[in-house]
């Protein structure tokens, strides 16, 4: 067994208690260790991705218990890709939190951050549905702490809402897991994939209930309409670096949908999710982009753009063809970077606008770095809206192209193209209000400037972190060819389930189409 597979979970799981117990009072040490852990995680993720790229799925049996009985971790191309994405984001967010001083505004930021990484990495690596639930809880409970970081009445109230929604979601998750277990007698994903087609006709209805409940649970995480209401309130009230990290949280939902509904309920049962997912995703796309147009504050505008991007992503997922899955995964990478970049840039802008905060009103010009931030915002916005030349355009193009053979091609094309236009208008309005129209407004610039410099003593690091996310988008555009090649292999692995099942259960596992 290759023990490196467990490292992305074990490393943050050891680092977080170490930070809490040994360096509670020493912020410098916390920062050094947290940043070092994030960079180490990135290195491990790169190595694992390189390893997964050229090999069949790899199994890690925790405690060396045999596959359907013990808990397994599985490293395949998809989980390696998600790990890499998480660790890239983690590095940028850590640096931003350190540079902007967000980690000083409350206690235990870095410890919670590492716990959150542990939960996210675990959710990507696990090969067991109940274990997925446990890692969801780990990442959620850390996210509660992070979301409330810094305190304040508005944040606490939004936090209560967020926690209640997710507790209700966890309850549904348990009902789904229980139903599936009652019908199949297993919770190992590969074992489920073998046993689901063998379920007797009388139990099929129960199994479908379980599967669709799972879809609802993942849809809550992915902020799919009609269960997206928690997202704007939560992300808008979360600290900027935390909101940027949460860009990967909606993708955990999307990842789970892709994993469970290709592997476990794949084959002839794929319709199960597709029938519900496609309309919901299209409505999500519309609602998100209307929200962009209707938002009166920049943070909420970005929140709605994240909802809109989840709509595009899940539209591609819902097609359940290899080509569409390639498009979905490409768009997933892009929207993670774009969402994170927008939240980070937004945090920098808000700090420099004094009392105007994030409201979309004309206000005295930014206290510092106005031009640079305007350029960063512009780049992130055209990425998110899907304008050339950045990845948003390529991603949407791939989604549209993969929908060409679909029965609902006309609907998908119409909705995606019109909503893209809406989001361009929305972002253009916000950008021109904040940067262009505000440029001529006289104001107490002197006081605002000194105030802002007080608030953000080191502006270099946060700007570099936000820039790194944009650089990642540019790199993704430049290397779109090799990346797409990797994603095609990933999608083939998802739809040819045999390799995954053989990796987990051994070569003589039940034959599945």
């Amino acid at each position, binding site marked *: 067994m290759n023990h490196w597979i467990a490292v992305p979970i074990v490393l943050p799981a050891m680092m977080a208690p170490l930070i809490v117990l040994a360096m509670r009072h020493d912020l410098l040490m916390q920062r050094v260790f947290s940043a070092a852990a994030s960079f180490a995680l990135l290195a491990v993720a790169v190595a694992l991705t390189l390893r997964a790229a050229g090999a069949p799925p790899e199994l890690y049996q925790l405690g060396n218990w045999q596959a359907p009985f013990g808990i397994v971790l599985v490293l395949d191309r998809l989980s390696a890709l998600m790990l890499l994405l998480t660790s890239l984001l983690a590095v940028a967010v850590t640096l931003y939190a350190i540079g902007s001083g967000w980690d000083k505004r409350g206690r235990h930021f870095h410890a919670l951050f590492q716990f959150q990484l542990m939960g996210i990495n675990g959710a990507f690596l696990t090969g067991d549905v*109940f274990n997925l639930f446990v890692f969801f809880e780990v990442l959620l409970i850390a996210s509660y702490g992070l979301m409330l970081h810094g305190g304040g009445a*508005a944040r606490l109230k939004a936090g*209560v809402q967020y*926690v209640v929604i997710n507790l209700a979601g966890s309850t549904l998750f348990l009902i789904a897991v229980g139903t599936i*277990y*009652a019908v199949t007698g297993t919770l190992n994903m590969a074992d489920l994939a073998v046993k689901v087609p063998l379920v007797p006709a009388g139990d099929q209805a129960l199994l479908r209930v379980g599967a669709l409940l799972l879809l609802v649970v993942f849809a809550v995480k992915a902020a799919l309409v009609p269960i997206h209401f928690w997202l704007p309130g939560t992300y808008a009230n979360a600290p900027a670096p935390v909101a940027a990290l949460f860009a990967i949280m909606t993708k955990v939902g999307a990842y789970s949908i892709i994993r469970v509904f290709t592997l476990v309920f794949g084959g002839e049962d794929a319709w199960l999710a597709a029938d519900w997912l496609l309309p919901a995703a299209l409505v999500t796309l519309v609602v998100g982009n209307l929200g962009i147009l209707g938002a009166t504050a920049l943070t909420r505008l970005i929140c709605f753009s994240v909802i809109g991007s989840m709509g595009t992503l899940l539209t591609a997922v819902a097609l359940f063809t290899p080509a569409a899955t390639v498009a979905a995964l490409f768009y997933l990478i892009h929207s993670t970077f774009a969402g994170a970049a927008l939240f980070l840039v937004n945090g920098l802008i808000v700090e420099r606008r004094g*009392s*105007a905060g994030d*409201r979309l*009103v004309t206000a005295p010009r930014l206290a510092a770095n106005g031009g640079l931030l305007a350029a960063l915002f512009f780049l992130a916005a055209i990425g998110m809206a899907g304008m050339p030349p950045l990845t948003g355009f390529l991603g949407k193009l791939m989604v549209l192209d993969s929908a060409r053979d679909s029965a609902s091609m006309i609907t998908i094309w119409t909705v995606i193209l019109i909503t893209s236009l809406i989001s361009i208008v929305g972002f253009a309005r916000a950008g021109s209000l904040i940067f262009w129209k505000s440029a001529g407004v006289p104001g107490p610039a002197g006081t605002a400037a000194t105030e802002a410099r007080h608030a953000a003593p080191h502006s270099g690091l946060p700007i570099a972190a936000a820039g790194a996310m944009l650089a990642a988008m540019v790199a993704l555009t430049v290397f779109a060819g090799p990346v797409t090649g990797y994603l095609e292999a990933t999608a083939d692995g998802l739809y040819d389930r045999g390799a995954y099942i053989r990796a987990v259960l051994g070569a003589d596992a039940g034959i599945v189409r």
Partner: protein
Amino acid sequence: MEFLVASGVGAMTAAGVYLLLRGRTFPVIIGLALLSYAINVFLFATGRLVINRPPVIAADAAGYTDPLPQALVLTAIVISFGMTALIVVLALRAYLEAGSDAVDTEEATVEPAASHDTRPGLPRDGDAA
């Protein structure tokens, strides 16, 4: 026995969902607790209801009761207990800071109505602390 367990789960779930939809934190928390009780019993029953059977396979036993749901329930109990403790503290903090225990965050998330207003208002908490 099946009928008893099933109606117990049903009644607790119904009460839990009803309370969850209230607008104040206290009933919501009680509702979540009831829901998690219902789920625990439900999970327990997913291994089929059997009495007087060993949980592991023994040579002389006529059958066995599935031990896995019991492990799942144990995990679920620990997690839901921790989460309930967290949300009780959180709700209390929110009540003390905001002076209201409404779950609805309308006033917290609604933006100032006049968007052309350039008066320096209070910065929203999430952004310019």
